């Protein structure tokens, strides 16, 4: 709030006191503080809301910086920890999630940083369940990559269903094949029986002999 010095003719004590400039400023300050308090409360509520969503979402989310140190991770991700560690933030993700002491050769987070794009690592097995890991670049306002967001989705049930479906399809195919073979065998067998039947009968009429010869010439 800028002010200039008052000129000589403007310095009239009575009217200045009546005007109460200090009182006006004080009142305005109070309002500024109240407004600040309100905004801080809204900010805290927004933070709490987002934290709630972050922790209850059904996938593991982990945010690491360019050195692969964990900045933040949600509750679901903590269930996937390989090592039992108290202070996760600040540690390297490979230490905590993979249980190794140096970056692995194949790592979706490293690939995302190097290639500056999203990466999908299909299957990682942890604690008996199968996960799909997606990593995407985290950028600052200028578009520079400052970290990686790793999302781990539990696809164990989906894989089981896929496997069961695959087995069912294989069985169905075998079934169709068997039916086809049976049909292929039945046809000639039926013919053979048909023509061989007259062989059991007493030798006889000329028509029967010709009939038999024609039938046998088919094979």
């Amino acid at each position, binding site marked *: *709030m*800028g*002010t*200039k010095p*008052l*000129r000589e003719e*403007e310095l009239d004590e009575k009217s200045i006191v009546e*005007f109460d*400039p200090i009182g*006006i*400023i004080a*009142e*305005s300050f109070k*309002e*500024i503080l*109240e*407004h600040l308090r*309100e905004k801080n409360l809204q900010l805290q509520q927004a933070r709490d809301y987002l934290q709630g969503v972050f922790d209850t979402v059904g996938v593991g989310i982990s945010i690491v910086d360019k050195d692969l140190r964990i900045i933040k991770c949600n509750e679901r991700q903590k269930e996937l920890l390989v090592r039992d560690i108290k202070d996760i933030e600040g540690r390297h993700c490979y230490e905590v999630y993979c249980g190794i002491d140096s970056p692995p050769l194949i790592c979706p987070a490293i690939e995302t940083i190097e290639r500056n794009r999203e990466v999908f690592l299909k299957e990682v097995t942890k604690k008996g369940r199968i996960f799909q890991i997606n990593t995407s670049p985290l950028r600052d306002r200028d578009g520079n990559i400052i970290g990686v967001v790793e999302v781990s989705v539990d696809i164990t049930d989906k894989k089981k269903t896929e496997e069961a479906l695959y087995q069912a399809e294989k069985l169905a195919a075998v079934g169709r094949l068997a039916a086809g073979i049976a049909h292929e065998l039945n046809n000639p067998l039926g013919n053979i029986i048909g023509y061989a039947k007259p062989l059991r009968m007493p030798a006889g009429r000329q028509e029967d002999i010709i009939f038999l010869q024609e039938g046998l010439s088919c094979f």
Partner: protein
Amino acid sequence: MNNIILDIRGQICPACLLISLKELNNNRESIKRGEASLVVLTDHRDATRTIPNAVTAMGYSVNVEKRDGYYEITIKKER
């Protein structure tokens, strides 16, 4: 909407801000409820900076428009 007009054209610099704040504080309730707005008419260019800075920090929304020979600063409750 009750538009309270505060014509301080010709007023000296520090007084612009102080008089506007005084008027704002006097009508705080109705402006914050959205029933009124304060329209300050001033020919001081500095006021178009000092008044918006102050009232924004106090939680109001402000709009400045140039008119013929003066400025019109409209102060309402925050959106």
